[in-house]
């Protein structure tokens, strides 16, 4: 029996270099398994973005004053609405972390032989995957509403990569906020207060050039702006001249926020 015990321990020790990666994959698998058991959340969360497209988009498309560069208005806001719905999933991912803190799950994860960086990044990526699934639900609805997407599958794939990257970043931001807020009520307040300003202070619904200078400067540092620009270029307009700048901006955001979330994460159990 002892041989079995020590063998088990050795197995754990020898795998040290891949530990982090392993935990990240386990976290993604956890999220996928959760999703498989209960998909209602994905469907109910699809309602709001579909209303944005079907109601707000349809009505506003009659206002011809918004310079969309010759694109129908519904098509113009589709990337923003897709991103808003995924970011909604990510920003409220922190709630899961707050819940896991209230129960003993986080304590237990922190006592497992894996780094907290792997835990944070794994969870954020897992949330990114979940958010991407959310976008996949809305995507066909947009097609039904007559939105014309670029038919190049590589472009669509790149757009989904962008959705995934920005969602992961916002999930990390959410984990960061959760590690500071610690209670559900405070977190809910902050979460609500984050989403709408992010959405409005970006180019999701209208071009930045229409904004007052103050809002323009916020939009300039809002990572959502770059994500919308990239997804709009890749999915709708086909204008991908800024694509490298957009991806760079989002990668920088991801690195910064993953680092901050990893550092603050340990505080969450104290």
């Amino acid at each position: 029996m002892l041989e079995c015990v020590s063998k088990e321990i050795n197995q754990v020790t020898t795998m040290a270099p891949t530990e982090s990666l392993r935990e990240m994959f386990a976290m993604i698998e956890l999220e996928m398994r959760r999703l498989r058991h209960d998909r209602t959340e994905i469907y109910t969360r699809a309602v709001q973005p579909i209303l944005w497209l079907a109601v707000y988009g349809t009505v506003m498309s009659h206002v011809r004053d918004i310079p969309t560069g010759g694109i129908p208005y519904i098509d113009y806001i589709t990337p923003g609405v897709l991103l808003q719905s995924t970011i909604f999933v990510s920003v409220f991912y922190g709630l899961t972390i707050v819940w896991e803190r209230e129960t003993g799950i986080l304590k237990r994860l922190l006592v497992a032989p894996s780094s907290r960086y792997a835990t944070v990044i794994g969870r954020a990526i897992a949330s990114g995957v979940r958010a991407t699934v959310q976008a996949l639900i809305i995507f066909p609805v947009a097609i039904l509403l007559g939105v014309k997407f670029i038919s190049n599958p590589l472009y669509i794939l790149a757009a989904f990569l962008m959705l995934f990257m920005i969602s992961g970043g916002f999930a990390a931001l959410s984990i960061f906020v959760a590690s500071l807020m610690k209670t559900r009520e405070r977190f809910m307040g902050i979460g609500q207060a984050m989403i709408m300003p992010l959405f409005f202070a970006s180019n999701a619904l209208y071009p930045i050039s229409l904004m007052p200078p103050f809002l323009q400067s916020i939009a300039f540092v809002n990572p959502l702006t770059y994500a919308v620009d990239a997804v709009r270029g890749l999915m709708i307009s086909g204008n991908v001249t800024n694509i490298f700048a957009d991806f760079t901006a989002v990668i920088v955001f991801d690195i910064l926020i993953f680092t901050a979330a990893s550092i603050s994460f340990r505080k969450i159990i104290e």
Partner: protein
Amino acid sequence: MTYAKLQKVNMKIALEIDRLTKIYEGRVNALDGVDLEVKDGVIFALLGPNGSGKTTLMRVLTTQFRPTSGVARAFGHDVVREDAQVRKIIGYVPQEMSVWTDITGFENLLIYAKIYGVSSSSRNKCIQDALQSMGLEEVEGKLVKKYSGGMIRRLEIACALLVKPRILFLDEPTLGLDPSARKAVWENLMSFKKEYGTTVFFNTHYMDEADLYSDEVAIINKGKIVKFGTASDLKRSLHSEIISFLLADDQTGMGRLFRSNVLDRIKALNLVDDAVVHGTVLDVTVEDGEVALPAIMELLNCEGVKLKRVKATNPTLDDVFLKYAGMRQQRNQSGYHHGPN
């Protein structure tokens, strides 16, 4: 070589704790110089009132908190400097629920197996072993939210047993469970322990559990270990058994007791601490009942006090606990502090 034989050849120390302190925010002394040694392969119970520091101690030992000063080692690995090593050899079940309720029991074990890096070839066997040792084979495919409290607790322990840890830490393992669920948890744990020789370190305030299942007990109060030993050592150390004599004929019996100072003469007997009369019952507190009883009986007999019944009450671990933790706390009520528990 079986585990038991190996243990005899080389009696190792599982946990060494030396002058450990933990001060929260510079003022609350949650741990105030804990010294403790837990031998390999024992079941160790840490008893203490709420806020005594038992959860804090466990969280330091499981590398969640850094101690303010002092040293703790698990099988020679320092819990601060070698925390990664320590995490590989321990299993831990926190007080609060620690499994995901929106996936099945099997999936919980699967995710933990992956986090712990159990190789894919032995993963299924490890999971089946863990399910079996906690008696959960029949519900492995059910969502955890449909489990009863006892089943959830057993699943949590199964998750911790998955990698066959050398030390298993359980923080109030049966809190809030009904007696039959508590029994099931312990029976499964005991048979696992017997098979793998795992050291079990648990916090509790169920005295009967500590009494029944632990090899060694320590009582912690106000961040200090106030008593350490086996449960029977601790009970013996109280030196107090109460023998109750129910008098047969109350009027004359009572009269006789007081007429010739019987009470004082009983008190003067060797090994007798105290004697009091409540109604028709004479309670005598003795150090060793087996020796003191004949002497008391003889004296009562000589004085013609007739007895209806004699009953000896052995001290329980509750009495030990109250003496070393309860009383002390009452005396220092004003200085009572509570750390995050």
